[in-house]
C-alpha cells in the first residue's frame, strides 16, 4: 500500500497575547491509499486542530505534513473536508444543488458533467428530491448529507471528516455511517474520520488512532480486524467488535487520565 498522507512530528501551539495553548505536541502517522482511518480522543485533544493542519487551513508550528509526497502549505487539490459545524459550512443563500455544484464550477468542471455529478451525489445521500430547497429548510441530518454530497461530488482522493455525525439522531447516524462506508467502498477514496464516539470509530474504520489528552501525542494505533462487510446489527453484536470497543474504551480512559 502506498502512503498518501504522511504526518511527521506535527506540533501546534496556539499563541495569542497573554495565552499560549500547546494543543498538539507530537503526532506522527502515515495513511495508505484507500485506507479508512478513524481518529478518537477526548474532547479538546486537538482533533480539529490536526484536521485543519492536514487540510492546509492552518500551518503547524512544528513538523510537516505531506500529501502524495508534496508538503501541505495551503489547501491541496483533491482533498475535501466535511466540517464539524456542517450547518454553517453550507451557503445559506444557495439551493442544495448549487451548494454541491459550486465547488465543481470553481474547479472548472464543464456544466453537463457537473450536472451529472451533482445528481449522482445527491442520489447517493438520498436527497434527490431536495435539490431545490435551501439548507435552512432541511433538518440537521439532511444538511449534513448535503455537506457529504458536496464532498463526494468533488471526487476527492482524500476525504477528511470532523465529527460529522455528532449532532444527528441515532437512527440517522447509523444510516450515514453505512452511507460513508458504502461510498468509501465504491469510490476507493482515502478517509480520515474524526469522532469522539468509540463505537463509531470501531465500526467504521480499518484503523483507529487514539489521541492522548492535549498536548497531544498518539496513544495507540489500533488495527480493526473486522470483516470488510459490516452491518449495524451483526457487526456491533460480534464478540470481536465488543473486544475492540473495550480496548479503545480503555485507551480513551487512560488518555483522559493523562497518560501519554
Amino acid at each position, binding site marked *: 500500500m502506498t502512503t498518501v498522507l504522511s504526518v511527521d512530528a506535527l506540533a501546534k501551539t496556539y499563541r495569542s497575547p497573554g495565552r499560549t495553548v500547546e494543543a498538539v505536541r507530537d503526532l506522527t502517522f502515515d495513511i495508505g491509499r484507500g485506507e479508512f482511518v478513524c481518529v478518537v480522543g477526548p474532547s479538546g485533544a486537538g482533533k480539529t486542530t490536526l484536521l*485543519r493542519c492536514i487540510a492546509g*487551513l492552518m500551518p503547524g508550528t512544528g513538523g510537516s505534513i505531506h500529501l502524495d509526497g508534496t508538503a501541505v502549505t495551503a*489547501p491541496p*487539490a483533491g*482533498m475535501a473536508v466535511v466540517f464539524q459545524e456542517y450547518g454553517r459550512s453550507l*451557503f445559506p443563500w444557495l439551493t442544495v444543488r448549487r451548494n454541491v455544484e459550486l465547488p465543481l464550477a*470553481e474547479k472548472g468542471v464543464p456544466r453537463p458533467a457537473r450536472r451529472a455529478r451533482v445528481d449522482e451525489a445527491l442520489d447517493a445521500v438520498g436527497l434527490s428530491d431536495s435539490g431545490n430547497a435551501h439548507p435552512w429548510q432541511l433538518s440537521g441530518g439532511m444538511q449534513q448529507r448535503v455537506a457529504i454530497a458536496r464532498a463526494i461530488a468533488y471526487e476527492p482522493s482524500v476525504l477528511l471528516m470532523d465529527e460529522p455525525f455528532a449532532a444527528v439522531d441515532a437512527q440517522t447516524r447509523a444510516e450515514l455511517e453505512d452511507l460513508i462506508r458504502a461510498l468509501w467502498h465504491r469510490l476507493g477514496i482515502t478517509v480520515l474520520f474524526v469522532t469522539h464516539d468509540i463505537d463509531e470509530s470501531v465500526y467504521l474504520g480499518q484503523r483507529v488512532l487514539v489521541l492522548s489528552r492535549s498536548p497531544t501525542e498518539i496513544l495507540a494505533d489500533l488495527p480493526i480486524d473486522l470483516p470488510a462487510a459490516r452491518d449495524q446489527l451483526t457487526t456491533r453484536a460480534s464478540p470481536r467488535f465488543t473486544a475492540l470497543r473495550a480496548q479503545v474504551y480503555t485507551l480513551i480512559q487512560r488518555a483522559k487520565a493523562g497518560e501519554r
Partner: protein
Amino acid sequence: MIRRLGLPAVLIGVWWLLSAGSTSFFWPPLSVIARTFPATWTLDPILHDVLPSLARLALGYTIALLAGVTLGVAIGSSATLRACCEPALEFFRAIPPPVLIPVIALFAGYTGWTSKIITIALGCLWPILLNTVDGVRAVDEVLRDTARSYRFGRLAVLRHVVLRGAAPRIVTGARQALSLGVILMVISEMFGADRGLGAAVVQFQRGFAIPQMWTGIILLGLLGVALSALFHLAERRLFAWRSDS
C-alpha cells in the same frame, strides 16, 4: 396593501378636515395645496428642478455605494487595515455631513453639481462603509474555511462568500444612506441659489408662496416613499432565498 395605505389615508383625511376653512397664512387648507400642486409642478420645474436633483442624488448615492462597499470589504477583510483606519473612521463618522457643505463648497463651488454630489456621496458613504465593514467581519469563519478548502479563487470568495455573507448589513447601510441622501439632496441645494427640488422649496418659502412650498414638501415626501418602495423591491429580489419558494 390596504393595511399599508390605511394610516396615510387617515392622516390625509385628518389634515384635510383640520385645515378646511383655515385662514392662517402659513397653514393653507389642504384643498388649496392640492389645487396648487399641478400648477406648480409642471413640465418645466420637473425637467429643471426635480430631475436634476434626482440625478445628483442617484450619482452621489451610487458613488457612495461603490466606494463604501469597496472600502468596506477591504477594511473588513484586513485586520491591519482595520487597526489603521478605525479611529479615523470613527472621527469622520461623528461629523454631521451638512457641516461639510461649506468646506466642500470652498473647493468645488456653491452652484455647480460637483459640490452637491460630493456632499451626498460623502454623507451616504459612512453608513454604507461602516455597515459593510461589520458585515464582512461577521461572515462565518466556517464558510470561509469551506471556500478555502475547495480552493475558491479570490474573486469567487469575494462573490460567493464575502459579498453574499455581508449583504444583509450592506443593505442595512444602504437603506440608512438612502434616507440620508434625500436629506442631503435638499440641504445641499439650500446654500447655493441654484435650481433643484430643495432650492425650489426654499425659494417658495422666501417668496411667501406658502401653498407652493407645501406642494414641494409633499413632493419630497412622495419621493421618499417611492425610493423606499424601490429599495424594498431590490431587497426582496436579493433575499428571495430567505422566504419560502
